[in-house]
């Protein structure tokens, strides 16, 4: 997730900055990723990369990379909206103080963009977390898979599935509560 946010922010900046070919590649990448279902990306990455490199990647590592790459596309769109939500005047104010592009990004734009985007980032993160169950498709071990194995071992599949659901709920609920309090703490005083 952290990787997705960092990569996604860079992608968003790439799309917004006038960097010619890089902006176009970033845009194409985001559009491609957002037009393909996640399950397909997971499967495709898992099956095709070994064909190209000649070496199997391993289900867990493959899943991790796919998620970072996929989520980056979504985070990038969120960040793009966030960056654009910060007014042009703020950019100018940073520049007028003598800040470089990176300084005004890091000190002025992104901190505000991030605050504006927090609720949507949270939603996307919860979706991402729940989507991890899709790695089921390539047999990587996630919470659901682990629950299934445990259920089979103890011959209690139903209970283990319920248990997995409860854990998903607790984690997502805690996360959303935490973000809400974070949001209160760093809110921009208007």
């Amino acid at each position, binding site marked *: 997730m952290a990787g997705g946010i960092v990569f996604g922010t860079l992608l968003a900046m790439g799309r917004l900055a006038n960097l010619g070919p890089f902006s176009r590649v970033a845009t194409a990448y985001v559009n491609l990723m957002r037009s393909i279902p996640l399950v397909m990306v997971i499967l495709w990455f898992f099956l095709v990369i070994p064909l190209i490199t000649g070496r199997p990647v391993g289900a867990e590592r493959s899943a991790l990379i796919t998620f970072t790459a996929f989520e980056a596309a979504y985070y990038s769109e969120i960040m793009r909206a966030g960056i654009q939500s910060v*007014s042009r*005047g*703020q950019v*100018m*104010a*940073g*520049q*007028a*103080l*003598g*800040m*470089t592009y990176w*300084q005004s990004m890091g*000190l*002025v734009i992104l*901190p*505000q963009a991030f*605050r504006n985007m927090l609720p949507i980032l949270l939603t996307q993160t919860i979706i991402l977390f729940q989507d991890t169950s899709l790695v089921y498709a390539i047999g990587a071990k996630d919470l659901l898979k682990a629950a299934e194995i445990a259920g089979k071992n103890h011959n209690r599949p139903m209970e283990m599935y319920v248990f997995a659901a409860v854990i998903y709920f607790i984690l997502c609920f805690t996360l959303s509560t935490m973000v809400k309090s974070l949001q209160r703490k*760093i809110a*921009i*005083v*208007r």
Partner: protein
Amino acid sequence: MIEIRNVSKWYGKFQVLTDCSSKVEKGEVVVVCGPSGSGKSTLIKCVNGLEPFLEGEILVNGTQVGDPKTDLPKLRSSVGMVFQHFELFPHMTVIENLTVGQVKVLGRTKEEARRKGADLLDRVGLKEFAGKHPGQLSGGQQQRVAIGRALAMDPICMLFDEPTSALDPEMIGEVLSVMQDLAREGMTMMVVTHEMGFARNVAHRVIFMDNGRIVEDTTKQEFFGTPRSERAQLFLSRILRH
């Protein structure tokens, strides 16, 4: 200090600035006025390179603003700018607004920047607001903080882009009085404003713009005495009637 030579600028096909030339000497206060859409704000933003221009040249303290080789961030750090809508950083406290540029751009230590910031806050009469956020301040207070933020960089000159246009009438005075003090101390200032009282009190020269052209560029005495262009006469009569 500031030299503008034959500057022209287009937005697409629309020409916003036509052949503008003027000069601001060290220690001089120059007021730029004119009807809305006449290009005043655009011109002042060209001076520190916030707006690019296509033709002509602008020199600030001998440095070419339009030259791609110029280190614009460095140039801007020595030119203070105050905006119509204040543009304080809302996610920082007042004192952080005054120190961020000093620390990150000028490389001063935090203590040094804080001391300087506190002094400047005191000077604009807002010492007790250091820990507040800009959103908790009134418009006039925010604009005074913004002036302090610009001054914290020890600028060689100050640009004001309609500093009182977004303020309630009762707050205009407090901002203007800070600006007047600054002018009396000998700060070089270029001020886009409709405040003719301010121009009368402290300006040395007045530039009148219309349709992207500088139509008058004279001393204050001449401007308020006998404006030469018809357009300036009309503008003045409209403004001074109130």
